[in-house]
């Protein structure tokens, strides 16, 4: 796991603990000097806020914990807290995220650097509590940065990074850290934590509000609710200015990708851990004829299968998409352009269309003169298991497509009973 020669905090100075993915996030939030955590404390909530509320009750953090009556209120409360200048966090899953939906857009358009942990779980109906990415894809267009992690170590690392990415003056957008429900959230894993002080230093201490010039005050002021410099957040904005107010969001998203990469490198120097270039995590792609793209924890299984197939001499590789919004179009085009066939795995479907990442990858590759063939594999809905045997079957099909040079079925469903 630790690969840099001399990280600022060497492995022996790091704290090794056995935790599940939820607790890994809770510990990361504990170390991130978060001022306000607001969360709905009942189903579909996870252990993240349960563990965090214990830190609050024990007096281990300075955080104001608000156990609100719904996820709609949880997101509203962190929006209010962030507008007042606080570093704010909340967590949810599936139906809870769906209930947050309208306030998600408000957090991003008011440029509030809130961090949200999404434990990815299926949406009703039927009621299901297990992993898929339907919840996260519902917030795809809400103006949030979306990161998907592969394991609990990355959940810890990424949660801390998320505050730094969100608060970067070139970004100022909310960040959602996605971790697979149950596969990560409820599974024990050894992780390495940094000492508190190292995290505090990495984040530059408490959150500092950005500044902006406001004409009626005649000066530059901190963007926060302050009676001395009264500001109005989110008033009526019609056809005269609404369009102009969307453009800074477009621009901030463009800048976010490089900040995600930069923070990944800074974390590497500090902890010795990094995740690809921060946006894509690739394995065995250089000379691969068949490449599979995937989000989240399934990447580990795919990598395992790729190793096995490589040992048999098959030219296969895998790309884990770590950053989904903003989507790394240039990077994905660069990685996939030499492949004959790309299998795009989606743990969600847009009914009446394809899986969400298939649409992005199609868009990314369209500008190439010679494009790889594409097959979309929708898999694992509602927590359906994805064993290596299933991934092997997918690779067999993709290798056959590479041989035939033709895609007969562009949308396939992996692991469903006929």
């Amino acid at each position: 796991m630790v690969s840099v020669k001399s990280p600022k905090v060497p492995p022996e100075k790091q704290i090794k603990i056995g935790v599940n993915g939820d607790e890994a996030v809770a510990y990361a939030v504990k170390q991130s000097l978060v001022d306000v955590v607001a969360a709905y404390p009942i189903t579909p909530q996870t252990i993240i806020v349960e563990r965090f509320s214990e830190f609050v009750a024990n007096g281990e953090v300075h955080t104001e914990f608000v156990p609100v009556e719904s996820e709609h209120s949880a997101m509203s409360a962190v929006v209010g807290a962030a507008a007042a200048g606080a570093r704010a966090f909340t967590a949810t899953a599936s139906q809870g995220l769906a209930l947050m939906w309208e306030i998600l857009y408000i957090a991003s358009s008011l440029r509030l650097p809130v961090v949200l942990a999404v434990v990815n779980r299926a949406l009703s109906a039927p009621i299901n509590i297990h992993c898929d990415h339907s919840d996260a894809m519902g917030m795809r267009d809400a103006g949030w940065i979306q990161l998907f992690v592969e394991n609990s170590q990355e959940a810890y690392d990424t949660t801390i990074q998320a505050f730094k990415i969100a608060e970067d003056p070139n970004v100022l957008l909310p960040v959602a850290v996605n971790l697979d429900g149950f596969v990560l959230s409820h599974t024990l894993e050894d992780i390495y934590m940094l000492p508190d002080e190292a995290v505090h230093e990495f984040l530059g201490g408490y959150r500092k509000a950005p500044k902006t010039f406001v004409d009626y005050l005649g000066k530059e002021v901190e963007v926060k609710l302050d009676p001395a410099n009264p500001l109005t957040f989110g008033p009526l904005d019609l056809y005269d200015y609404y369009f102009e107010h969307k453009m800074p969001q477009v621009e901030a998203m463009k800048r976010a990708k490089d900040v995600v990469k930069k923070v990944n490198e800074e974390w590497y120097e500090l902890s010795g851990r990094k995740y690809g270039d921060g946006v894509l995590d690739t394995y065995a792609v250089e000379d691969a004829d068949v490449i599979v793209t995937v989000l989240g924890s399934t990447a580990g299984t795919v990598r395992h299968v790729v190793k096995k197939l490589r040992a048999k001499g098959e030219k296969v590789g895998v790309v884990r998409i770590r950053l989904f919004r903003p989507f790394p179009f240039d990077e994905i085009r660069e990685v996939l352009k030499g492949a004959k066939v790309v299998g795009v795995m989606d743990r969600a479907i847009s009914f009446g269309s394809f899986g969400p990442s298939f649409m992005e990858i199609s868009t990314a590759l369209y500008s190439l003169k010679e494009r790889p063939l594409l097959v979309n594999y929708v898999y694992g809905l509602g927590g359906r298991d994805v064993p290596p045997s299933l991934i092997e079957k997918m690779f067999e099909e993709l290798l056959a497509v590479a041989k035939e040079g033709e895609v007969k079925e562009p949308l396939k469903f992996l692991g469903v009973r006929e």
Partner: protein
Amino acid sequence: MAQAKELKEPRGWRDLPLSALPYKLSLEYKTGGWRAFRPVIDQSKCVKCLMCWLYCPEMAVLWDGEKVSINLDYCKGCGICANECPVKAITMVPETKE
């Protein structure tokens, strides 16, 4: 961003404050044009109880210490003042009439 240059109105998106904050006060946004009925005060009936001043949701009822009047730049013509007036000194007159 510190504002130095004179900016052309309406502004382009690069010249707006962060967080979609308004850069002008809402006082510059006159809502009187929404009005269909105009409150007219009969000063001979007015007892200066200031119920209209208290109830007006737009703070469009003015009180100068001697006389109650209406700020027609902001009055939306909702009629709450006329409804609350205990001596019926306020009448809502259609804007189509003088």
